[in-house]
């Protein structure tokens, strides 16, 4: 599913964010990406979404080398994966339903199908009854779950999360992580960047640990 081969990323200001990173994420696998802030977690995720390009090595998704991916294919790469951000990037002037349905509208899905799929996604995150509300009417934890619903509404085979519990208290964080685990159970490949080590420790999944741009630990 995802493969990093000798990947390095140096920003134009000279900062080396990633140095010779190698790892493979099999289809259906769930893994955590840890490290202190500035260790290169966000950079690694940006290479996967092609928000950035690596300076050396190869990032392969489904066998496709992302540095060779033409710009016009980037939107289709992003439809292939669901991405959950630390702040959920919801549109305040649209209802929960409209926020979650956005990826489906973009893909040109029919209206009847949209209603069905949005409700399925909202049901999955336990917020089925909130579809007519606006984001500001929801708590931070609920907003984050709406972000997850939007990420999975398109049924992507690959789910990425960048500090999804960063703004949440421990109880809510555990709930969110459980949600990711459930998605992993039904076959989705999941990669979560997080520094919430205590929470990660009790999840029993593979951990990729970055330090100063180097991948120094890969395993349980």
């Amino acid at each position, binding site marked *: 599913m995802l493969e990093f081969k000798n990947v390095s990323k140096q920003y134009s200001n000279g900062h080396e964010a990633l140095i010779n990173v190698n790892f493979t994420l099999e289809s259906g696998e769930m893994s955590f990406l840890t490290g202190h802030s500035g260790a290169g977690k966000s950079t690694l995720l940006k290479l996967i979404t092609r928000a950035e390009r690596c300076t050396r090595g190869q990032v392969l998704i489904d066998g496709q080398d992302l540095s060779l991916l033409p710009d016009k294919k980037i939107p289709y790469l992003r439809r292939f994966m669901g991405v959950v951000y630390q702040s959920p990037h919801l549109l305040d002037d649209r209802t929960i339903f409209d926020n979650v349905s956005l990826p489906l509208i973009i893909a040109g899905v029919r209206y009847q199908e949209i209603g069905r799929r949005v409700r399925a996604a909202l049901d999955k995150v336990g917020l089925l009854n909130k579809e007519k509300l606006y984001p500001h009417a929801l708590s931070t934890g609920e907003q984050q779950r709406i972000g997850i619903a939007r990420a999975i509404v398109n*049924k992507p085979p690959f789910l990425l999360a960048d500090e999804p519990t960063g703004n949440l208290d421990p109880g809510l964080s555990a709930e969110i992580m459980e949600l990711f685990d459930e998605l992993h159970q039904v076959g989705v490949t999941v990669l979560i960047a997080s520094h919430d080590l205590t929470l990660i420790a009790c999840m029993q999944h593979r951990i990729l640990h970055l330090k100063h741009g180097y991948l120094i630990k890969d395993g349980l």
Partner: protein
Amino acid sequence: MKYQSSNQTTVNELPSINIPQADFRIYALSHWRALLVSLRRLMHTPLESITILAVIGIALALPSGLFVLLQNIQKISLAWDQQTKISLFLKTTVNDTAAMQLVDRLQLEETIAQVNYVSPQQGLERLSKQAGFTQALGQFSDNPLPGLIEVVPSKAMQAPEVLGSLVEQLQKLPEVDMAQLDMAWVKRLHSLLKLSKKGAYALAIFFASAVFLIIGNTIHLAIQNQRREIEVIKLVGGTYAFIRRPFLYRGMLYGFLGAIFAALFIGLGLLWLRDTVAELAAEYNSAYTLAGLGWSGLGLLLLSGILLGLAGAWLAVNHYLRLAD
């Protein structure tokens, strides 16, 4: 929510990184949604939208209104052209019989539509009917008037360029003393019309540029207001075409609705002029009525509006997307 199992051997059945095959249904649906979204955005700020549409309407109405007026003047001047007559004053040595022979000859000419002979006697009668001349004519013992042939040129010969050559040709006839056409004013009117039309074209280009810039700037502001939305759309896999589409439709809507405003303004203007023109026409014993834009004019106006809106929006969106890269 059921997930398809992600097995690497069945990658093709999953959402794929590859650009999906073109599907007309999806394409049409996306366009329909973009149109609806742009309409909703226009109605979301009704006062602002109406102000912009009124400005576009005025800018489009000025040059197109001028064209309508010029069209009307041209129509009137064509009616005058049909009354163009060339008067052939015959030499006094030409008697009635010779004159009638000339009339017969002229009637065979293709360049001439109508020939009418006024003998010196008839000329005298005509003059004496007009008050004040009877006494004056009484002073003459002989009839001082020459024979007169009135020639109405055929339609093809009425254009001022060819009319002159016809007059010259008639002047050369041995029986004719003088061929007279007061065509200076016809010529002047035609060149004035030509000049006005050129001015109207320049004005049209000027105002079309203004409409283009107004719509471009309005779309630019709309994009600034929706930057966050555009960013989110990009994050979840929206193509540039998807981002661009609602703005292009919005530009076209501004142009189209603005053109409708312009047509209304022109209609109101003509309505306001109508009574005055009717009074004026009555004084000239004419039933002349003002012509409006007409269907083809309206079509052209709407099309120009739509194209200007599309171009303005295209410029604004592409400028933004290039900067965003």
